């Protein structure tokens, strides 16, 4: 079972790869839209990559509820 820190690191890498945002800026309290300026299609790209990386399905109706990095960490851990 991956720790929250592992997941955060993995997510930071994915977000950096997709958006160019430095992985260090991907911290739990950040909002994808308001803080990281990530649009809805980029969120889909991140979700597709996260599904491959962490082996979890993120359905579209759940994706729209994932507003902060912390929301994604919690979703993946559960």
């Amino acid at each position: 079972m991956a720790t929250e820190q592992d997941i955060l690191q993995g997510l930071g890498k994915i977000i950096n790869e997709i958006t160019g945002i430095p992985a260090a800026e991907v911290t739990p309290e950040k909002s994808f839209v308001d803080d990281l300026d990530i649009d809805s299609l980029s969120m889909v790209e991140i979700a597709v990559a996260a599904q491959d990386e962490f082996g979890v399905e993120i359905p579209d109706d759940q994706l729209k509820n994932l507003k902060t990095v912390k929301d994604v960490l919690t979703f993946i851990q559960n």
Partner: protein
Amino acid sequence: MSANRVRVVVTGLGATTPVGGDVASSWSALLAGQSGVRTLTEDWIDTVPVTFAGTAAVDPTEVLPRPESRRLDRSEQFAMVAAREAWQDAGAPEVAPERLGVVVSSGIGGINTTLSAYDTYKERGWNRLSPFTVPMLMPNGPAAWIGLDRGAQAGVHATVSACASGAEAIGYAMDMIRAGRADVVIAGGTEAAIHGLNVAAFAAARAMSTRNDEPQRASRPWDRDRDGFVLGEGAGILVLESEEHARARDARIYAYASGVGYSADSHHITQPEPEGRGIIMAMTQALTDAGITGQDVKHVNAHATSTPAGDVIEVQAVAKAIGTHPLVTSTKSMTGHLLGGAGGIESVFTVKALQERIVPATINLDNVDDGIEVDLVHGAHRALPAGDIAAVNNSFGFGGHNVTVVFKGA
């Protein structure tokens, strides 16, 4: 031709080709007679009868930021690299968004994306596809991304006519400026089609060289032993501008884009019409459009792809429509055939030839075929005369599309 018609000038050039990652390196490679054709190592190579191609000298993913590369099909990556070079070369002109247009085309579009996305869909399901799959595979994608990059609002277009696409884009861009729809238009062609399916399909049409033991000797326009074209990849882009706009900002003017001619053979879907009537018509109309005669044309960058059928028909048509005097070359002998990108890079090379007054030699032309009267440049590059001269770029495509673009020295 109306005397007070808007005149179009070329103020920026960009290219990424099998012989160089930009205009300067591509042009010096052409003058040095270097081939950009290489043996391929892809995993599909044993499934096709052709094992070589003109791969890009500089991979576009090495130039573009990673987040941008992954959203762009390779054809879009090439177009973006060349468009940015052209824009900087033009001095990054200040132009109102509603006066800036883009016309950039490809022959096949995002074929690599289409095929790899189909594999992803079949093997892993629809929800593993990138949300950018559609803009990566659509043939207007390169034009659209460049338009977004520059904020162009006067119209963003992609003219599709197989291997004439890039030249047709330049013609359409000239027409946009002359019609008063735009002051500046980014125009050209791009292609990224080195994939097993394309090689297989062109080989099935018996159009490709199979000189697998001598890849750099395979593209040999007008040579007796030519046996088909060599696939290449890359993009060539020009910044076109109304003369008034360019003069007002004191831009460097490479050349005038002074005429374009279009025709359709309506003869056969892939074979050239043996008398070259359609080609003659395109060249004649382009000269008329430019307000010049054949005597003014001192150089032709020919379509000549190294196929047995097309090369001689073209230069016989040149002799009839323009004359036997121009210095004729085929830079495809070094770059291979970039399909929809051909008209883009070859227009860049035609403009460079006018600017530097030098015509690169066609390589691999050991024994000139019968029935050719024009002055083919081979062995060594040749000088163009000083003064008020014009040069022509021809591009023809499957479907019988013929486009001729005329440039005049500045």
